[in-house]
């Protein structure tokens, strides 16, 4: 038995791969659910109902999907150019913190203030990723390590700020940052739910990223640099400039996720505001095979699992950590599935 490279990937295969991966992950996780003494079908039924069974459930799921779309885009953009940005979590938090800090006392009308705050969050994320990128370009420092470790530094920094200079004096001692001025809270998309217009911003971002990657010179050059850096350099594409561009875009998207989450959902920053949006973004990007449109679908799936798992846990007693297991398993099965989109087994 051996692997043989496929001549071309058909569209059907490209779509089937993530579906097969998700299915395989669910089957594998079913074993764990059964081991917890619950019928997996019942559990998955509860999960589905919890995420999609009511109007409220759907809006909750979409609220959860919003930052995932953005962090997923951040990872997809970077990975396409072989820039391994594992720092989405840190960029998310820094974007959120800067948004709360500036948004607390900006003093301009909302129509100007909201875009300004989003730009600030994006700038913070972009700046955070440019450090590791410069280190890689200059000295060959592995950005997997630097971006990953920066996450912890940023979260500790956020902790320092919300216990210190940016602490909310009205929060009865809770470790929570000063809130964003209520004028800059993103309007609700559906009344009396948490769903806000951030979802539309995320969808617009996905469309924009698709346009950039698929239709612009920068997009083609990014892909060339990722697929064959030597040939790209030979063709006159400046690798440092391309990678810096990618880093700024990727960091900005993750920073935007943080800004939107603060303005749309939490209002202020805590060190627990993200249930791992940055890391889950990596899974989203991989499930989407780094395709911006796929990112939206993958984010919906991951959000469904996370939101549904809470409901399932309440109904069946299976720990909600099963959500993390499913998401992690789907990353692994997707990696296998990706192998089969470009290779076939031959005897």
């Amino acid at each position: 038995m051996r692997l043989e490279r496929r001549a071309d990937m058909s569209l059907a295969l490209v779509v089937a791969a993530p579906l097969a991966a998700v299915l395989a992950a669910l089957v594998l996780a079913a074993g764990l659910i059964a081991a917890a003494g619950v019928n997996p079908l019942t559990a998955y039924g509860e999960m589905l109902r919890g995420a999609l069974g009511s109007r409220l459930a759907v809006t909750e799921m979409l609220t959860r999907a919003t930052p995932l779309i953005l962090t997923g885009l951040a990872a997809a953009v970077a990975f396409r150019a072989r820039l391994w940005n594992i720092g989405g979590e840190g960029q998310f938090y820094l974007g959120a913190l800067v948004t709360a800090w500036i948004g607390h006392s900006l003093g301009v009308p909302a129509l100007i203030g909201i875009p300004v705050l989003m730009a600030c969050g994006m700038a913070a994320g972009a700046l955070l990723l440019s450090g590791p990128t410069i280190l890689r370009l200059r000295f060959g420092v592995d950005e997997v390590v630097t971006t990953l470790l920066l996450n912890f530094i940023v979260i500790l920094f956020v902790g320092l700020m919300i216990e210190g200079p940016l602490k909310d004096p009205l929060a009865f001692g809770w470790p929570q940052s000063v809130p964003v001025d209520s004028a800059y809270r993103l309007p609700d998309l559906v009344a009396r739910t948490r769903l806000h217009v951030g979802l539309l911003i995320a969808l617009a971002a996905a469309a924009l990223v698709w346009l950039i990657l698929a239709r612009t010179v920068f997009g083609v050059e990014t892909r060339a640099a990722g697929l064959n850096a030597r040939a790209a350099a030979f063709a006159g594409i400046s690798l440092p400039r391309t990678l810096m561009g990618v880093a700024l875009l990727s960091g900005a998207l993750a920073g935007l996720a943080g800004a939107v989450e603060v303005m749309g959902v939490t209002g202020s920053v805590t060190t627990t505001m993200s249930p791992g949006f940055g890391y889950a973004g990596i899974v989203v990007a991989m499930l989407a095979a780094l395709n911006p449109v796929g990112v939206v679908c993958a984010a919906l799936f991951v959000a469904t699992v996370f939101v549904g798992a809470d409901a399932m846990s309440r109904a069946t007693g299976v720990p909600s950590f099963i959500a993390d297991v499913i998401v992690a398993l789907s990353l692994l099965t997707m990696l296998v599935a990706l192998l089969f989109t470009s290779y076939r087994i031959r005897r």
Partner: protein
Amino acid sequence: MSDVLSLCRITKRFGPLIANDDVSLSLRRGEILALLGENGAGKTTLMNILFGHYAADEGEVRVFGEALPPGKPRAAIEAGVGMVHQHFTLAGNLSVLDNVMLGSEPLTQLRSARATARARLMEISERFGLPVDPESKVARLSVGERQRVEILKALYRDARILILDEPTAVLARPEAQRLFQTLRGMTENGLSVIFISHKLHEVMAASDRVSVLRGGRMVAERKTAETTPAELAELMVGRKVERPVRHDHDIGAPVLVATGVHVLEEGETRLNDVSFQVRAGEILGIVGVSGNGQGALGALLSGLAPPASGSLILDGRDVGHLGPRGLIRAGAARVPEDRHAEGAVGEMTVWENATLERLRSPAFSTAGFVRRSAARAFATELIRRFDVRGATSETRIRLLSGGNMQKLILGRCLSIGPRFILANQPTRGLDEGAIATVHEELLAARAEGAAILLISEELEEAVNLSDRIQAIVKGRLSQPVAAGEADARRLGLMMAGVWEGENAA
């Protein structure tokens, strides 16, 4: 019966493609058989069937009279067949001895018998005249030495039949000659050898018998002594192929002038005080044994390695520090040495590759957006004009054969009407038909007044195409000689570093 190996009526299909069509072949004891054919003729597929990597759809393989079970490399090894692949299968971080032993010991055995293995390896290495240091790391060996390790690996497993897939593709000429001497010695020891090749001169020089494959069929079998290169070329290509001939014409003013150029790579001098000029309508050939600075010269003229000192003037303008993009804008076109590593992004489409160098020019983009229809039309035109087979503008370029990929890269270069062309090993790895096309295109560009610098390790190619020739030795260039005065002896001396008035070595 003196046949040690026979392939009987082998047929192998890959989907609609018939890679081998009813092919039969036999190998006698102590014989060197050349399997000759163009790229894509089915040579490698046939050898992979013989070695058990593929299972044939029809037909059988007999080794020493016994039929081999299909699809089992281990059975082939046990029957005494050893294969040396074109791309080596060695672990660079292990020693020579480890690589040779790898896979030859049972996994269940706890202690490995290194001392015994070492003694056996040394014995084999001495008997067949293949010197190696068993303890040196493979990563530190030269390509020729690695190939030696591959051969030793096969011999260590008691191979009586050795198959070499394009063994000289990665070797410089002296190394190739040494290899064929070694093979000859092995046949005198009773081994039998099949080597795959598309190079006529080495088939003529090294084989006893030639089998010619074309389009998956065995079209002819000849005793080497009773055939000629011309006949083999015709059999291989299926029609008469003649490499085009250069005609003298008037040569213009200097276009590219290098004066006293030094190039450093990682602190080491790769080009040392190099001066040359290429004139309009002229091909300047740079010959030399590989590894003497051709890489640095190629990088310099591609814009990837700026000169540390000295100047590089194109049409009166200093272009040494412009980088690839600036150089292209200044009118330079570059055919890279390694088309897979540098010339093309395999996973991208033909149109993306065709326009990658000039994507930012107004012809192919507006306000940062790619003009896709213009780019596709350009690629389609290149495919038509340069006769690129088996491709549309949407084909991913890695699916093209080497020759077709090279035609596309050449087309990308020539379409801009370049003032200067760097052609770095433009025909390496190509078959006769494609070589003739590449030569024709280069001569046509010369006739239109382009200044061309040709870096080649194939002396015949350099002599046939070039108006003047310089040798590169240890990063230095000899004085140029006119092609008419360059006989083999003189070039040989130049490549050895002996030239008038000084001794570069």
